């Protein structure tokens, strides 16, 4: 538990630092933040007045401290482009993004690990090299491009899947999703609104596949490499020497031993997906944080960008933390390190 406390405190430190970097970027780099707020039309006098009301006249550390307190109190300011409270904007959009990430990661883990194991089992055979090629293609694929291609092919030409959005628009009127947890797809399941569920899944496939490409590549390579690593260990020889069946050794022992690093990589790629959603949601017009982030970036919506960055950093931390927790369950040695 002590270790846990240490981790939490260090996490907090990192978060502070992260928020500081964002803050500095937002406050220092642009010529005049006040201008950003009232626009080029502002007279010098107006700008000066605003600078004081915004506290821009104080030294950066003071401003930062204020910003921290405000942020902590849940006052994240208003988006310049939508005029809505940032926190609310993010809260409204987060579920869609998390559902997308969840499915992407699931695809990546299921297919990635499965193929990686398969490749390890047939090491050196052609299945192996085939999978290796798949994997490296996965990690080399620009998500935005893959998204466009899939959209053009499977939505545009073949019309197998919808091209955009998380649900059909009619759904709002035919089979409205009753809000329980705020996660639309999940809610549709627990409220037994299966029409909505299927529709959601139908919409989910293309974006999730696009998003998962990179993680898939990463995971299948990792799974293969680690499995081979494990299989070359003494304790596997011992297991053989004691007549344990190959199935048992491969699927129970080796796989179990290869799991911890795979979990780590899963966490890593989950973090990668946080920024991945920016591009995928952009292409598929997904109603999540990602598209909001891109819009905020392009319109230089300071408060929004700072809010999003903070949330992303938190997401990153949380992922790592979860990974560590799982790790400690999987590998008795973790807490030693």
């Amino acid at each position: 538990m002590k270790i846990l406390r240490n981790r939490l405190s260090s996490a907090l430190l990192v978060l502070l630092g992260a928020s500081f970097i964002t803050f500095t970027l937002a406050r220092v780099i642009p010529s005049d933040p006040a201008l950003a707020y009232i626009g080029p039309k502002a007279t010098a006098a107006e700008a000066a007045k605003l600078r004081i009301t915004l506290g821009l006249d104080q030294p950066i550390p003071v401003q930062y401290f204020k910003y921290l307190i405000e942020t902590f109190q849940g006052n994240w300011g208003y988006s310049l482009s939508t005029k809505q409270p940032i926190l609310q904007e993010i809260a409204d959009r987060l579920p869609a993004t998390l559902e997308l990430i969840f499915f992407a990661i699931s695809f990546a883990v299921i297919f990635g690990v499965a193929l990686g194991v398969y490749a390890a089992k047939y090491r050196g055979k052609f299945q192996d090299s085939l999978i290796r090629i798949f994997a490296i293609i996965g990690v080399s694929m620009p998500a935005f491009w893959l998204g466009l291609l899939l959209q053009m092919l499977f939505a545009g030409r073949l019309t197998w899947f919808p091209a955009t959005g998380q649900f059909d628009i009619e759904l709002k009127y035919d089979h409205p999703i009753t809000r329980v947890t705020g996660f639309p797809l999940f809610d549709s399941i627990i409220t037994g609104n299966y029409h909505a569920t299927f529709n959601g899944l139908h919409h989910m496939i293309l974006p999730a596949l696009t998003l998962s490409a990179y993680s898939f590549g990463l995971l299948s390579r990792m799974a293969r490499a680690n499995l081979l690593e494990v299989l070359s260990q003494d304790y596997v020889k011992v297991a053989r020497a004691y007549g344990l069946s190959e199935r048992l050794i491969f699927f129970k022992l080796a796989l179990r031993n290869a799991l911890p690093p795979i979990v780590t990589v899963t966490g890593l790629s989950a973090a990668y997906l946080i920024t991945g959603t920016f591009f995928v949601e952009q292409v598929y017009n997904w109603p999540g944080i990602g598209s909001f982030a891109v819009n905020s970036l392009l319109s230089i919506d300071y408060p929004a960008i700072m809010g999003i960055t903070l949330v992303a950093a938190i997401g990153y931390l949380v992922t790592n933390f979860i990974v560590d927790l799982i790790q400690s369950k999987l590998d008795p040695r973790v807490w030693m390190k």
Partner: protein
Amino acid sequence: MSTVLKVSNLEVDFIAAGTVINTPLRGINLEISSGQTLGIVGETGCGKTLTATSIMGLLPSSAIQRGSIEFAEHGLVNAADMADIRGSEITMIFQNPQSAFNPIFTIGTQLHMVAVRRQIARNKIEQLLHARLRSVGLNDVKRVMNSYPHELSGGMLQRCMIAMALISTPKLLIADEPTTALDATIGHQVLGLIRSLQQSEGFAMLFISHDVSAVAKVSDVMAVVYAGRVVESGPTQDVMNNPQHPYTKGLLGAIPSAKKPRGELTAITGNVPSSLKALTGCSFAKRCTSADAQCLGEPPIIQIKEQVIACWKVAP
């Protein structure tokens, strides 16, 4: 006194892309009778461990094995038969206990898996394991069973290894450098333990070590291996007291002992040839002080009393 294991001119080739790249075993002949200990001694890379591996039938797919192995009442056995014998009638102790146990399972779990594999009745397993652990001198059984490998010392782990080896009351125990990874005193204790267990359990043992003194301590019969061949074998006492083969002499010369005055330690110059492909004649010739042209031919097998030596330079 019945023969437990008989290995006759065991040869192993390693194949890569269809061609032989190495022949590390070039005709090993061994015989162990029940309750007896055969010690195999030789420098690292002589093929000691490989001999054990091929007896266990655990050679990698890239290896081809020739020669015959007879085991107890099974008679001639091939790798396939070994799959059933391995782990029950023949068990093995390994060099490095730290890496020999799976780091993410408790000792208990790992012993348990082996026990289950041996079709021991579930309700009996627990007590059997406890008994075994006690017999190897681990009395805090509960703790040991519930600890992970990294939580135990090398000595304790090696004891656990031995306990694991004895779960199935084997006919033959192969001990591959069981003490090398341990520090001297622990090593001694472990050796002692093995010895006493052997008396009580009555299994035969194939004891592999590069350390002649260790071999001398535990084995009744010993075989000196060089470059994939047994160059000299016989009752431990005889071999130790009057070694015939130059290599054996060299080995013995390298051990300090009370008999020899200080500074008489001799060493064998040169190293074991790394690849034994297409090596003819006496493989020790290159390093042998008394070697000559004759030594390029296959050396004759000379028998002196119970000692068997493969050398041109030994007079019968």
